[in-house]
């Protein structure tokens, strides 16, 4: 027998206890939406998982009103340590239900169970634990004594890390004393709805967390709602721009975490085997559907051939297939639309003269799949070197000197992440200093920690998530908040409404 054809080792779906239909989670209850429900499917099989409610304008109003009520009557009045208790409770429940959440995430998103089990869900718990600890220490957030919460936060998150992005948004918002209305992506609402159950289980006061599902128009209604004080969005640069336009001229605070085209720079003195692992992890983790993916490989000319050879050999060992199999390295692409975009950009890469190589792996019949692909002979002017592909596609470029590496790495409208591979510490520090990217990893890639701020430069967005900086995004200095209260007529109107 062939040992490397490991026998199937599927994670059981029996742990899931899903409903056939999910409502909107508003004011602590699941309620039906006014829009036409839609199906959430598994991208690996295209089979329906559940029917999901669709929130219309009236539902968004209801959710924001519930969040406002909860903010005014309970959450903003709780002591920090009491808010912390709820967050710690949520974190523990996430840990208790980790296996279930991991299976649900793999099923709904298409990413391999080993990633949801070992990365996504542990990080979700870590994020809640981290911000739970901040809840009673806000005076150390860097905004002076007694910083004030903002109010109601409207949060719209993407489909690539559904539950993790939820944690990045909800944990700091609640710790700071805000209430939230969150809209998960249309293709991946499942874990957000399981999270709603966790909020019920944790006895979180009704209205503190509201989760509304729907497509882009629901998100649009939410971020444009007059009664939200903070908008946080993670997703594409195009939508981010539209949101920025819509909040311009209002007093809403805004955080945007958008696209990227991260450069992974490999110097000739790099620890080569680990660099190969880092390149693979940088662009094939989560099928490359990562905003901070290292999708541009900048490799020093003197080691280019060796690196590409080793990379191809390594990619040939990746196992593509059933996301729920514990040995799967590459899962399904999240949606047909995304697959189309990846295929289209890859075809353009070929037409523009880059050399395409894909790992030889069997593609399942149903579902959305794309074999790990690398392009060599890529020039900086090629579209595959400039556009965010958001798929398992790596563009390989070369450089001769550190100065050229820095210039090429910075030659992008984005600025979210970068990686440096070298055995020489002084070079790592010197190069990192000149890279215009929010996160620079040295001799590693795609490592996350709740204590470390994350965010972008240029078209990759603004504001930071994670760490003290991520907390400050949901706070205002005490005096500013007082001014806003007296000066803004909108707020007095709201007070009347509450009476």
């Amino acid at each position, binding site marked *: 027998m062939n*040992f*490397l*054809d*490991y026998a199937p080792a599927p994670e059981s779906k029996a742990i899931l206890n899903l409903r056939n239909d999910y409502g909107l989670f508003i004011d602590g209850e699941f309620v039906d939406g006014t829009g036409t429900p839609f199906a959430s499917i598994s991208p690996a099989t295209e089979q329906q998982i559940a029917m999901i409610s669709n929130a219309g304008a009236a539902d968004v109003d209801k959710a924001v009103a519930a969040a406002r009520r909860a903010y005014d009557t309970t959450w903003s009045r709780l002591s920090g340590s009491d808010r912390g208790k709820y967050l710690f409770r949520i974190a523990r429940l996430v840990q208790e239900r980790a296996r279930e959440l991991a299976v649900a995430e793999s099923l709904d998103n298409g990413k391999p169970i080993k990633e949801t089990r070992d990365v996504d869900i542990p990080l979700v718990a870590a994020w809640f634990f981290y911000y739970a600890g901040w809840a009673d220490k806000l005076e150390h957030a860097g905004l002076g004594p007694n910083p004030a919460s903002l109010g109601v936060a409207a949060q719209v998150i993407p489909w690539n890390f559904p539950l993790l992005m939820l944690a990045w948004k909800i944990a700091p918002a609640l710790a700071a004393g805000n209430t939230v209305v969150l809209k998960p992506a249309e293709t991946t609402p499942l874990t957000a709805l399981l999270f709603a159950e966790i909020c019920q289980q944790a006895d979180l006061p009704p209205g503190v967390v509201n989760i509304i599902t729907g497509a882009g128009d629901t998100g649009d209604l939410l971020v444009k709602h007059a009664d939200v004080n903070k908008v946080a969005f993670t997703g594409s640069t195009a939508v981010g721009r539209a949101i920025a336009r819509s909040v311009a001229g209002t007093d809403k605070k805004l955080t945007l975490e958008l696209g990227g085209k991260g450069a992974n720079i490999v110097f000739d003195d790099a*620890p080569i*085997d680990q660099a190969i692992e880092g390149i693979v992890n940088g662009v094939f983790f989560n099928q490359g559907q990562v905003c901070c993916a290292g999708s541009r490989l900048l490799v020093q000319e003197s080691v280019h051939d060796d690196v590409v050879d080793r990379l191809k050999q390594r990619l040939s060992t990746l196992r593509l297939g059933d996301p729920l199999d514990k040995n799967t390295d590459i899962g399904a692409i999240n949606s047909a639309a995304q697959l189309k975009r990846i295929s289209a950009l890859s075809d353009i890469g070929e037409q523009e003269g880059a050399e395409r190589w894909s790992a030889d792996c069997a593609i399942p019949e149903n579902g959305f799949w794309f074999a790990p692909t690398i392009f060599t002979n890529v020039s900086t002017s090629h579209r595959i070197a400039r556009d965010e592909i958001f798929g398992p596609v790596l563009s390989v470029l070369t450089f001769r000197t550190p100065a050229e590496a820095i210039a090429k790495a910075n030659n992008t409208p984005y600025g979210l992440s970068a990686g440096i591979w070298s055995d020489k510490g002084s070079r790592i520090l010197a190069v990192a200093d000149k890279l215009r990217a929010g996160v620079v990893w040295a*001799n590693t890639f795609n490592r996350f920690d709740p204590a470390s701020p994350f965010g972008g430069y240029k078209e990759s967005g603004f504001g930071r998530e994670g760490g003290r900086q991520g907390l400050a995004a949901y706070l205002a200095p005490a005096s500013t908040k007082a001014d806003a209260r007296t000066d803004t007529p909108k707020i007095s109107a709201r007070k009347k409404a509450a009476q």
Partner: protein
Amino acid sequence: MTSTELATRERTLSLLGGEATDSNLRRYLHGIPGVDAVGLEQRAAALGTRSIKTSSKKWAIDTIIGLIDLTTLEGADTPGKVRSLVAKAITPDPADPSCPRVAAVCVYGDMVGDAVRALGAAHTTPAQPGINVAAVATAFPSGRASRAVKLADTADAIAAGADEIDMVIDRGAFLSGRYGEVFDEIVAVKAACARPDGTTAHLKVILETGELNTYDNVRRASWLAILAGGDFIKTSTGKVSPAATLPVTLSMLEVVRDWHRLTGEKIGVKPAGGIRTSKDAIKYLVTVAETVGEEWLVPELFRFGASSLLNDVLLQRQKLATGHYSGPAYVTID
């Protein structure tokens, strides 16, 4: 010099660009790309999460047994203890005749004769593959003796009928940068492995990675041992902690893979010491298969140096066959 020795020397000269002096070796070994410890350990941990089930597990269990160097290396070893070990090597599971035999028994040099006699017809002969006798030599485990003593130690074991020699490198010389000395010693021991009939015992070079301390050192020592003509590189004596670890073994496998890319020659790897459970051993199989390829999972190219591992593997084997776990009373102590 035999023709293989000549070929080894020629290749070394061309790779180093000169004789195997301290400075030439230093230039070569320090030009090898470094190892990032965090990344290496992360990769090893990831390989450790592979889930090996049902038919794959069954194959893995039998393969592990066939790759074991069943070992006794105690000051208290006696001919009786060695006979008992050999009996276990021949019939690992008395209740199941289909159970494969181990690859070799590994003993101190003065026990080689007893092991050979005890094996009898089960011993490897030129005509018939069987169980090998491996002898630790060169003032094992410390290696602190004169070159003459080490060579005599080796020659003794060969004369007594050893098929494989597990030598230790001079870690002191390695750590103080006297690479030429380490190199020459391996070459000399390899020459001492020659038998009168022109054949040569297989040479495993023990790096004692626990004393080398850094992965960069492990990698350099691996290259050095292979350049000098070692047939196998082996992690540890089992007398120093830490002994074999997955990251160390992974790093050595990467060297073996690179050597194969460079020369087309296949070198063996033997993690030894500290591997006690089937679960751990399966992680090593996965690491071998995904780093150098499945063709390395044969006794000529991969071994486990272990004693207690065998019984845990046998318990797992019985469980796969019967569907339930038995207990330590259902496997034999050797």
